[in-house]
């Protein structure tokens, strides 16, 4: 279940977005919400520092935004005043539950590939024009030398996002994975051996 499904299941919804930490990982709004993700995350941090658990924040104007919090995720929903709030609460809870269990699956997927080295099977120039921002931020570190674990560190994207992007592009036939045997004596690229090459 993705955030897009909120609009399909609940009336009066203008759009939704999913934040992990302070990064947007999914959105169906045509507005850049990265600034909001930081604001709401800082508010959440301040409340936690004061030993307050936070489950939901509702900002009401002529329209409303409801934030559902389930660390490290925040689901934001922009809704009109006509929205059926109890239904929205149910759907949001379902989506957050789904995201959390998906995260566990992707984490295990990541641990199985974190020492592998992804590389392009085709020229990156072919796919670059079609990449979203976060896909670009992951795939720009794919150079046939960096392991998946290193790509997580370099891209600063959540682990499951990196795993999802890499696995998706392997399935599309754009990337391939090679296990690595690395001897680190300083210059990593110089002492990098791939089993596939031996």
């Amino acid at each position, binding site marked *: 279940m993705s955030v897009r499904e909120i609009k399909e299941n609940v009336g009066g919804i203008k759009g939704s977005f999913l934040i992990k930490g302070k990064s947007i990982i999914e959105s169906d*709004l045509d*507005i850049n*919400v990265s*600034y*909001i993700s930081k*604001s*709401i995350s*800082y*508010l959440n941090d*301040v*409340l936690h520092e*004061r030993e*307050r*658990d*936070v*489950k*939901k*924040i*509702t*900002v*009401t*104007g*002529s*329209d*409303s*935004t409801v934030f559902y919090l389930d660390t490290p995720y925040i689901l934001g929903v*922009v809704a009109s005043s006509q929205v059926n709030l109890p239904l929205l609460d149910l759907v949001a809870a379902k989506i957050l539950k789904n995201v959390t269990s998906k995260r566990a699956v992707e984490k295990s997927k990541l641990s199985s590939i974190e020492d592998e080295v992804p590389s392009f099977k085709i020229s990156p120039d072919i796919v670059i024009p079609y990449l979203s921002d976060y896909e670009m931020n992951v795939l720009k570190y794919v150079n046939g030398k960096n392991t998946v674990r290193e790509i997580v560190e370099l891209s600063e994207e959540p682990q499951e996002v990196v795993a999802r992007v890499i696995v998706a592009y392997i399935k599309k036939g754009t990337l391939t994975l090679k296990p690595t045997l690395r001897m680190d004596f300083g210059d990593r690229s110089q002492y990098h051996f791939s089993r596939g090459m031996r």
Partner: protein
Amino acid sequence: MADIILKRLVNDLSKIDGVEGAVVVAKDGIVIASSIENAETEGAISVFAGATAEEIASSLRLGEVSQVIIEGTDYRMMVLKHENYFLSIMMDEHTSPLVIRQEVDLVLE
């Protein structure tokens, strides 16, 4: 005079079932009236929540912010925006912010 009215308001609000206390805080964080012990902390949270809500409303085109409700496991906090101050009401998890809002609007009228 306004000061006296606000002090009376927070005291009156505290008498409503489920309301644990209220604080009125200026936008610069100065507590104007309060019926709770840790007024400075609650006031700071209210100002921060109010300012964050204004940023969010402006980015998402929600219109003028009228209220922010923060809900946890065992509490609810409603921050109402007025021209020069925020009124923040602490309540238990069973109390309806909608009912409290109606009471506040009656008093402020």
